[in-house]
């Protein structure tokens, strides 16, 4: 009986310790649990897949390092998909801390596909005001970003010879740990009819389903699971796939803890009634 009572009040340090072990073990020795493909992820993949060669995808790295494990694999996977399909990539960020993260993507992934800077891809850097930047991109990208991140005049870059505004962009993908994808919907989709997709942290994904069902988002990646699904679709397993086992085990552990807590709670409740 004492054991059942104990179940309702396990010391939190024991919970922390078990959680640490359950996260570390799958990271050291992967279990290779299956990763399915959900509809929101497949929709985004299919949308990019059906674009003609040379189409332009705008990747907005709207997150900072705090959500790096969830959001960065998404951005990498999408950049990889875009460039492997011979589409053109315009990268920018609306988060000041996102420049370093976008820079990592832009300096690594295009090299895998021998892409040329300024022609196949470009990094525009950061602009401070979200509203003015998103609306301005709908008028003239070169006026909002007269120079790219590296100080080149955007007028001189080959990619902008036939790309002026949203009319020439097939899709905007906003990867974010905040409500920024909604701003893209209100401003770019609402005013210019631009197709938008989003990648967000797992805790935020539920908030974005209304926009997905109405077609305002063409696709949605939710948390590390969404990133792992995308990695599976592009056949390049990376950061997210390796982290999924740890995520799965920790989820199960939390469920077990909740069940244990409830067994203890019910027992204590019954004893009080007696």
């Amino acid at each position, binding site marked *: 009986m004492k054991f059942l009572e104990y179940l309702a009040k*396990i010391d*939190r340090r024991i*919970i*922390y310790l078990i*959680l640490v072990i359950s996260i570390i073990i799958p990271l050291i020795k992967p279990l290779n*649990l*299956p*990763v*399915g493909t*959900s*509809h929101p992820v497949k929709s985004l993949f299919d949308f990019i897949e059906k674009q003609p060669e040379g189409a332009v995808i705008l990747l907005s790295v709207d997150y900072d*390092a*705090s*959500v*790096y*494990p969830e959001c960065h694999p998404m951005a990498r996977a999408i950049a990889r998909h875009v460039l492997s399909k011979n589409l053109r990539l315009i990268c920018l960020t609306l988060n*000041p*801390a996102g*420049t*370093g993260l976008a*820079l*990592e993507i832009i*300096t690594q992934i295009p090299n895998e596909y021998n892409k040329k800077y300024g022609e196949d891809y470009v990094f525009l850097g950061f*602009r*401070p*005001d979200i509203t*003015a*930047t998103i*609306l*301005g991109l709908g*008028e*003239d990208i070169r*006026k*909002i970003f007269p120079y790219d991140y*590296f100080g080149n005049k955007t007028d001189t870059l080959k990619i902008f010879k036939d790309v002026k505004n949203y009319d020439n962009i097939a899709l905007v993908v906003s990867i974010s740990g905040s409500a920024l994808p909604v701003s893209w919907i209100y401003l770019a989709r609402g005013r210019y009819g631009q197709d938008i997709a989003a990648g967000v942290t797992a805790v935020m*994904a*539920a*908030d974005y*389903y*209304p926009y997905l*069902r109405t077609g305002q988002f063409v696709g949605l990646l*939710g*948390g590390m699971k969404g990133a792992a699904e995308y990695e599976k679709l592009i056949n390049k397993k990376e950061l997210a796939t390796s982290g*999924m*086992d740890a*995520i*799965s085990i*920790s*989820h*199960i*552990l*939390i*469920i077990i*803890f*909740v069940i*244990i*807590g*409830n067994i203890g*709670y*019910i027992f204590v409740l019954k004893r009080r009634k007696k």
Partner: protein
Amino acid sequence: MLQKQVPMFICFLMGLLLFFQFYIPASWSQNFYNTILRWILGISSFAIVLGVVSLIRHHLRKIRKKEDLPYSITLIFSIFATTLIGFIGGIKSGTLFDKIFNYIQIPLQSSMFAILAFYMASAAYRAFRARNVEATLLLLSAFVVMIGVIGIGDLIHPFVPSFAQWILDVPNLAAKRGIAIGVGLGIIATSIKIILGIERNWLGR
């Protein structure tokens, strides 16, 4: 008097002009709109400078008062050191500035966020109790969604991920849509109140 009236008048005028501009497709209207966008970008850049200066002043004040001294010194040192390193060595990939970001900022921020997992596990264990019918329903749907979104859901039965997706697509959507409509109406009401000068909190008083 003027400190209050002038910003309110500018807000009223710009609110009305941009509202009507949206419905006027003429080229002069478009030029006006583009000019305003460039102005907003310029003003926003000043806001960043203002924010940094305000942050530095706040922490210098704390250092003078010897309040949370180590934290304030760390912040002031970090701001000036990274700025200086960025100006001298550049901000391109492979520079010291880039290394500071990759090897200090990313691990620190990621670790802060990762700690949440432990709090969530502990809080779920303590607070997630089947106290009544509503709480039990919440508990069960949380279990289904949690199992459904991880790989094990597929192993148990293909129906589990589909059911989890249904919970997200239907009951979750219904609740979120209601909230979104409420928020949308709230935004419209607040915008009208700001344009008409009824809502004045943005003036900072």
